[in-house]
């Protein structure tokens, strides 16, 4: 079959082929005339390059949860709490398995995989019975396993095995870098993603282990050289033991050592605590810079960042901006390319003053828009959050916020968002700006894209979103936003409920289509039920106000939901003591009008009962209206007169007659 087609095709396109041959022949000629074919150089590809290329063709699916969650409706999280709980539960299960592995290593000694995969094997335990030598220690240091390295080192010294100075130095590097303790392993991704939230609070808190292994090791070294000094200064400065670090730095300088560049950088950072006052800090920095200059150590990116980080702590000082500019200019001369951390510090320095607005962020965006960003400094991950915050409070500009967002989404820049805490802060700011400044359609475009799988709005952001829907009178959004509020478990947040009910009541326009009207009526019923339910379980402590219930009645009537409206009126009547205030008389008038129009006498009676209790100013008008506009049967008339009181009823009747005559 296929062959037939093929021959037919060939016959048909014979002419074309001949033409093609002719032309290609002429091409060959011209190429021999001097055009050289350039064969591109072979590019070495990594094992995952093809996978990366394929994955770059796939875009994010806004309707799908993050891939770490199981793709099943029951297992997909819908609130911030669930996201965190599910991800951490899975990790805790993995940890349980890990615990079993380490508890019963003898069961897992079989070798199936070839080559063996170390991650799947139980951890090796080092004790006195092990045959150890220096090479073993080197391997452990290579794997950066701090506690094992310390044990093995102790065992080696106990056995009297000499350790070369190189190994000793790398061990010192290891323990100083990790502050003598094992860090959370890279395997526990979720724990790292969720626990870093409280790191900010620990900023500048001294966490250096002063009597730790690093200090003992340092003291056992008989004649520490400049490397040893550099390492210990860096370690101390990393864990905020600034005073000791500065002391050691001075000691080293006195001995005439030339330290490594990173040690100088750490020494600059000590200015935060060692010196007080902006001028002294700046002098401190200058002093170290001159020493660097004298020793012939050129500054690098981290020098720049260290200086700026010190300057950012004294950003209120007017001089700091000048100093920062000077530093930047110097770095530019040396050809140092700034990282995101540099820009982060610049933002802190230049935008500390709320009165004098600085548009430095725009300049920064102009620079980084074309670059592909990679992480170079730990503080890099703070940039995007800070930039968005700057857009919200400092510049108050949607356009710039969107520019920041588009840069974040470019290439692999999203890796620089940091952790879950920073991510949610970032989106909090983004949504706040969108709510304050943009049309609802625009806001909803972002809302549909990001909520709920990437970001779930915090209660105050939900309130802002509801507000902007209210302002735009985007009534069709109400059912969706209410179901989202229920899903995020925010229906017990009083400000949100009040804002939503008030907004809905204000946006009742008779020109709406009947289907929307009906939806609103039903929605108001569900809102009432949901709140009642939460009040019963004690989740909501606020008491109903007459105004809120009145609004709900209005919405119910608007949507022909007379049953619910009556239920609310009965509620008003029965629980008068628990309800603050009374509904507007306008609401009651609407209710009565509706009843008159649709001939709902029983509902009408309930409303009259309530209005008699409250004793509205317009009560007589209401009743006379009923008597004139509604055709009542004698039975109904009797009912009404009994309710109102016969004398009063007759009085009103006479009044109507006198008016009509």
């Amino acid at each position, binding site marked *: 079959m296929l062959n037939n087609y093929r021959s037919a095709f060939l016959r048909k396109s014979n002419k074309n082929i001949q033409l093609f041959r002719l032309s290609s022949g002429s091409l060959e000629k011209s190429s021999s005339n001097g055009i050289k074919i350039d064969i591109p150089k072979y590019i070495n590809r990594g094992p995952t390059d093809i996978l990366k290329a394929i994955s770059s063709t796939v875009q994010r699916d806004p309707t799908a949860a993050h891939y770490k969650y199981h793709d099943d409706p029951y*297992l997909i999280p819908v609130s911030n709490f669930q996201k965190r709980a*599910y991800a951490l*539960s*899975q*990790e*805790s299960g993995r940890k349980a*398995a890990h615990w079993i*592995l380490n508890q019963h290593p003898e069961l897992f000694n079989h070798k*199936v995989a070839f080559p063996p*995969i170390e991650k799947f094997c139980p951890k090796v335990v080092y004790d006195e019975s092990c045959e150890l030598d220096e090479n073993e220690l080197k391997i452990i240091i290579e794997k950066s396993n701090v506690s094992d390295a310390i044990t093995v080192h102790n065992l080696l010294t106990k056995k009297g095995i000499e350790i070369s100075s190189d190994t000793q130095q790398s061990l010192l590097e290891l323990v100083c870098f990790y502050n003598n303790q094992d860090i959370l392993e890279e395997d526990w991704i979720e724990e790292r993603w969720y626990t870093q939230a409280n790191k900010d609070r620990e900023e500048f808190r001294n966490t250096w282990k002063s009597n730790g292994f690093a200090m003992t090791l340092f003291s056992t070294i008989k004649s520490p050289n400049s490397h040893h000094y550099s390492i210990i200064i860096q370690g101390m400065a990393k864990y905020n033991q600034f005073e000791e670090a500065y002391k050691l730095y001075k000691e080293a300088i006195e001995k005439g050592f030339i330290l490594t560049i990173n040690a100088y950088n750490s020494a600059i950072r000590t200015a935060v605590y060692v010196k007080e006052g902006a001028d002294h800090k700046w002098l401190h920095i200058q002093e170290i810079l001159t020493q660097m200059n004298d020793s012939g150590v050129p500054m690098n990116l981290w020098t720049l960042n260290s200086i700026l980080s010190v300057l950012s702590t004294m950003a209120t000082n007017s001089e700091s901006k000048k100093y920062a500019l000077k530093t930047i200019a110097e770095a530019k001369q040396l050809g140092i390319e700034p990282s995101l951390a540099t820009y982060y510090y610049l933002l802190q320095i230049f935008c500390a003053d709320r009165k004098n607005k600085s548009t430095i962020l725009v300049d920064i965006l102009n620079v980084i828009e074309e670059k592909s960003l990679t992480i170079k400094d730990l503080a890099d991950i703070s940039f995007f959050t800070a930039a968005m915050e700057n857009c919200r409070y400092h510049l108050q500009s949607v356009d710039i916020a969107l520019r920041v967002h588009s840069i974040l989404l470019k290439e692999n820049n999203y890796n620089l968002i940091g952790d879950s805490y920073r991510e949610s802060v970032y989106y909090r700011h983004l949504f706040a700006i969108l709510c304050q400044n943009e049309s609802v359609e625009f806001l909803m475009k972002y809302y549909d894209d990001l909520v709920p799988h990437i970001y779930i709005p915090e209660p105050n952001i939900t309130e802002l979103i509801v507000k902007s829907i209210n302002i735009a009178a985007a009534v069709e959004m109400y059912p969706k936003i209410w179901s989202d509020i229920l899903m995020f478990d925010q229906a017990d947040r009083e400000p949100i409920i009040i804002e939503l009910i008030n907004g809905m009541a204000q946006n009742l326009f008779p020109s709406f289509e009947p289907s929307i009207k009906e939806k609103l009526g039903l929605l108001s019923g569900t809102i009432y039920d949901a709140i009642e339910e939460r009040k019963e379980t004690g989740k909501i402590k606020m008491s109903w106000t007459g105004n809120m219930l009145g609004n709900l009645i209005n919405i119910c009537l608007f949507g022909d939901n007379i049953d619910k409206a009556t239920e609310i009126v009965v509620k008003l009547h029965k629980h008068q003591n628990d309800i603050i205030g009374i509904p507007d008389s306008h609401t009651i008038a609407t209710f009565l009008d509706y009843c008159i129009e649709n001939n709902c006498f029983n509902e009408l009676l309930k409303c009259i009962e309530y209005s008699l209790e409250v004793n509205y100013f317009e009560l007589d008008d209401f009743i006379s209206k009923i008597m004139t506009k509604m055709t009542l049967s004698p039975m109904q008339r009797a009912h009404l007169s009994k309710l109102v009181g016969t004398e009063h009823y007759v009085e009103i009747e006479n009044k109507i007659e006198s008016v009509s005559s």
Partner: protein
Amino acid sequence: MMLFNTLPRFLPGRSNYLVLSRCKHVQAARYKRSIKGNKPLTYEMAGPPHTIAHIKGWNSWNTCNMLDGLRPAETAIDDEFIRRFMTGTWHDLIASEIIIKRQHNIIRIAAITVQKISVTKMYFLIGYTEELLSYWLQCPIKLELQTVEDRTAVVFKYI
């Protein structure tokens, strides 16, 4: 079954008759009819083995038993281990057969579970199963679960 009952009548040959009558008594992987006719079967259980690749799939997907395939025996044992481990770990939660799919060095385990325990517990079990099985089999393991509200959701027919 109908075919086997009626065929002998048309094929009086002695040898044919014998073979077909043996076929009639094959009972592996076929479920016995209950007296009341209320035994629930899943879709997978409802099809006898000869319907594999026609109306249902395999429970183990691998290339071990092909020409020059590697470790056929070990794979069979591993699969049995995985099945027992799953039914034991997810006690009274699995509502279907456990499907084991091997691709390269990855083993994907698919099953349908009942929503009897909380979601966090389910995630705990997912993490635990994946990690412990990868320690045991020394390769990446992935669970691919679907959940159903109760067991009746997976019943295909009653016999």
